[in-house]
């Protein structure tokens, strides 16, 4: 079972190491981790995707809460949230027919071409993990040169916020 956890942390140096070390030491597996600033200065938000049953999730949540610089931990259930991931994909375009087929695929997925030369195109796409996986699989036969993904970020739907401060 996969879970997406939102973690609000104080923007201190070392907080990432603290969270990562906790996962390593307790044997929890991180599938992806995305960190960035929030609407509040000096508070960052981590979106962590982890694998485990309910009991593992409960331990992860409790152990994260014990870290002094962790302000709030919330399990973002997939049924009631929006999630997005961004990917950059560099693809081979050695032949002209390949190039036009790639452009069509990009259009279908409502992705963008953000860099191009005679050998490659670089595609930018956002969406759910499934959509990005599907695009990558369609592009694979052309020859993937490089793929980079941000890892998932997620937010609850409606007026609920993770900080619980403003509704």
């Amino acid at each position, binding site marked *: 079972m996969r879970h997406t956890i939102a973690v609000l942390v104080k923007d201190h140096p070392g907080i990432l190491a603290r969270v990562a*070390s906790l996962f390593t*030491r307790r044997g929890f597996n991180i599938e992806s981790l995305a960190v960035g600033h929030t609407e509040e200065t000096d508070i960052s938000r981590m979106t962590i995707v982890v694998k485990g049953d309910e009991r593992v999730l409960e331990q992860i949540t409790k152990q994260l809460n014990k*870290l002094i610089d962790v302000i709030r931990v919330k399990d973002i259930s997939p049924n009631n949230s929006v999630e997005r991931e961004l990917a950059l994909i560099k693809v081979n375009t050695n032949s002209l027919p390949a190039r036009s087929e790639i452009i069509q695929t990009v259009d279908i997925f409502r992705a963008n071409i953000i860099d191009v030369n005679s050998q490659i195109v670089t595609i930018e796409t956002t969406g759910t993990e499934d959509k990005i996986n599907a695009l990558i699989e369609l592009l694979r036969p052309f020859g993937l040169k490089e793929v980079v993904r941000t890892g998932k970020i997620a937010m609850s739907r409606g007026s609920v916020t993770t900080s619980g401060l403003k509704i």
Partner: protein
Amino acid sequence: MRLTGAQIVVECLKKEDVKVIFGIPGGVIMPLYDVLYSETSIKHILTRHEQGAAHAADGYARATGKVGVCMATSGPGATNLVTGLANAHLDSIPLVAFTGQVPTNLIGTDAFQEVDICGITLPITKNNYVVRDVKDLARIVQEAFYIARTGRPGPVLIDFPKDIQLAQTEFKYPESVSLNGYKPTFSGNVKQIKAAAQEIKSAKKPVIYAGGGVISSNASSELRDLALKTNIPVTTTLMGLGSFPETHSLSLGMLGMHGTPCANYAISDADLIIALGVRFDDRITGKLDEFALKAKIIHIDIDPAEVGKNILVDIPIIGDIKNILEKLNKYVLKKKETEWLNTIEDFKRRYPLKYIHNEELKPQYVMETISKIAKDNTIIVTSVGQHQMWAAQYYQYSEPRTFISSGGLGTMGYGFPAALGAKLGCPEKTVICISGDGSFQMNQQEIATAMNNNLAIKVIIMNNGYLGMVRQWQELFYDKRYAETTLNGNPDFVKLVEAYGGTGIRVNKKQELCPALEKALSLDKFVLIDCLIPREENVFPMVAPGSPISKMMGVE
């Protein structure tokens, strides 16, 4: 008032009412020591190794309930504190450690005596800090003490670069601590407390399982009230020894791997376990799948992460044990399960702790004798190994903070420096350190600290010339192949102490023990008694690792 960073730390220490610091100076912590040099209200105890300083601060904290403070320089000084911090972390002991650090412009350059001590101690401290701006210093020190002693206590480390010690700023001690990521739950949920009272009412075979949390929350008298009102028998963990008087008929003694048969049978038979400040450690539960199968479990603890970690709990109550027990004691009704108490009495009668009494100087006899001779309120401090278990089994503890031992980490060498810390914290009490010959040699350099500060503690060495507990396991589980457990080359401990100007007594025979103990206790100075015990005496009962706790070796 403009002060240097070093002066600010000392002012903060005074605000936190710190009386004693244990440590060793070195290169980059000299500015701080320079301020301490002229400070009269704080006593600095120079140990001979930083590990000794950390354990002494830990022993001080356990004996007094206050925050222990230790100090070391950067690099090797800081790394030498690590074992002591891990030890305090696993046993939830409040410590604040200061380490010197190379100047901020050199951090990250592999400068002389530079290590990333915050990185190293990340998983073994409750929190740690590198001070990068002198303006943050007072707040950080205040937070460190607050975090160390509140909630589930633990060690906090402050890494203190040399240039920050010298930098100046306006000193103002913040009025209060504000940490929005740290708000430990104090009062328990009343609904849960009422549910617990209901379970206690209907239980036919209840047992209280009390641990170190009862001692750290100073809840011994509330525990006593609960047990006496409901006539529920009490077993304690190693860390919980002293939280309930072992002289009382409701006491079952210690449970677990080397626990009493009656405690292990009672837990295995119980229909309700009231777990107070414990963590269902593997040394307690034995085979987890077979632990207390018939029992509902009420778990009261300040740390939510401990509840449901190893075992599923029926009624969790998060908060301070003292606070919760005060409320619970109002809701529980008087009761007495006579049949259950008769069963317990039967266990006790049929399966007492026992050893073969003969002319030899048995370690169990040594502990029984100390238990008889020692005054009330004597503090027993142990290291780790067989002697620790004999000290737990054969000495009767009746007050909290009178048994001090390394539980979670199992640190050999802990006892002696911790005893020095305990004596400094409680100079009016008798402090007896029980150690093995192996454990003692891991920190014996601190004899100098004891002598230098006239610390009149008594050290009893249970000398069997082995790493005894490992040897016992080799005997039982490794076909008596005693790989590297024979301590050839041990010193003459009596002469060793004499070399430092102390008093040593050797006890070879049973009849020499009493006079030696009486002499040692009558002298107001450091005395070491070297007890030559039978070399291959074993600790029983024993639950083999991975077995259920109802299956004990050494019990027929």
